[in-house]
């Protein structure tokens, strides 16, 4: 088991998020009381505790808030991936999430870099949102 990449196990808070990822869509919860977006998904708003929210399609664009290049694999499953980029992305909606920066050399990543979401189908059930440099042709 430990040779397999650890994968999320969706729960009541997150099953719609992961189901959307499976369709290659990035969705976020938006509070109906205070209009704030939040990440990660949860049953109440961390700004006002309202339990009224809607799932919204995210733009999928953001910028690198910080990153690190991982040189030592945390688990055997990551042995063939090092070095890889672990990053915190600030989405246009104002939330931050952890991800990898893919489709680019780790040495080319910088703070403030514009990125857009892409999807990695890992198993039948789980697709991980990833980010890549925003391409020239990307809408802006």
């Amino acid at each position, binding site marked *: 088991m430990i040779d397999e990449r650890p994968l*999320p196990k969706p729960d009541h808070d997150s099953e719609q998020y992961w189901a959307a990822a499976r369709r290659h869509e990035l969705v976020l919860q938006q509070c109906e009381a205070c209009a704030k977006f939040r990440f990660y998904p949860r049953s109440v708003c961390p700004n006002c505790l309202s339990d009224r929210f809607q799932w919204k399609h995210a733009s999928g664009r953001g910028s690198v808030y910080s990153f690190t290049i991982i040189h*030592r694999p945390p688990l055997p499953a990551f042995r063939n991936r090092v070095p890889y980029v672990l990053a915190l992305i600030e989405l246009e909606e104002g939330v931050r999430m952890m991800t*990898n920066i893919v489709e680019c050399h780790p040495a080319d990543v910088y703070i403030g870099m514009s990125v857009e979401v892409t999807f990695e189908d890992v198993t039948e059930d789980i697709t991980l949102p990833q980010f890549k440099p925003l391409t020239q042709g990307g809408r802006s």
Partner: protein
Amino acid sequence: MNGPFKRNVVIAGVAESDLGHDIGLTILQHQALAARRALDDAGLSKHDVNAVMAVDFLGLPSLQIAEYLGIQPQFTDTTVTGGAAFENLVEHATLAIHAGLCDVVLITYGSTLHSDRRRVIERGGIDPRMPPTQFETPYGDLSPISAYALAAMRHMHEFGTTSEQLAHVAVSTRQWAMMNPQALMRLPITIDDVLASPMVCSPLHRLDCCVMTDGGGAIVLTSAERAGDLRRAPVYVIGSGFYSTHHTISQMQNLTTTGAVVSGRRAFQIAGVTPDDIDVVQIYDSFTISVILAVEDLGFCQKGEGGAFVENGRLGPDGDLPTNTSGGGLSYTHPGALGLFLIIEAVRQLRGECGARQVPGAQLALVHGIGGWLSSHATLILAR
């Protein structure tokens, strides 16, 4: 003026178990050995103890160690805030003694981190549905190193902090360790050695990260009144503060400003002293960046100036802010949680027991615990 922090509660005894690699003791043996030594140090017996506090990440730690030692406590606490927990427990012990709920508090910790080869701290228990295991672990984060690396990278971006400046922390800390017979790493290192050590999570090299050891520790607190006829000079708890800003690193709103701003401000306020008054500092140095963030947030320098502040041996034996005089987590010991060992060293410095590494005339010490992923911050101010 006669509040719980006005020299009413003291740390009366401190001790380590045996520290290092593959010591061959269990977690409970580490705690029992340290507890016996700390009670001896205080001149108290186990029959005097009526409160037991311990932290672990599994089970019922305070009940377990109390049973092992044959103590039936009337007050207990097992605050789980990561590495900051022991500074929290001292705050709680101080309040409990002051309130008359107990007289003598024993706080213990033991770990077999190194011999268990637990390289990655497990998060969110074993439940794969917890937020960190759903939204961070699948991306291959190397917890907790990667979290501190993200903070270090952002600090470099915002303030121009350099890898050399981070390395100064490791070098100064090693200079202290060279004078501590208990320290695991005692060979001198240079800035170049730190920079040449393997990169783990950029910008953190191997020598920017703490050692991993087995070990245990214990401290004994009691009322100042009771401490009058004990074996050692009392060390007073005169200030404390706690603040937590997040649990999971991706939820930390500002990666370069920590909860130490709030915990430190409150500890100084309660103690009625300022950073300028502090003679010796113990900061949870799981990583070099932790120390740079803490000296800024505790008010020893301005935000963003921590990198320049730690240059030129300022934290070392010849510097004007002696910091992590035991050799800290970077060179002395780090059995999973360092917070108790920071307190032990501060007490020894205030008693003048530190031999070659003694800070002459140390009267006031600051101890700062950090837990989780820069998540929890607990500051203590101790006085002789």
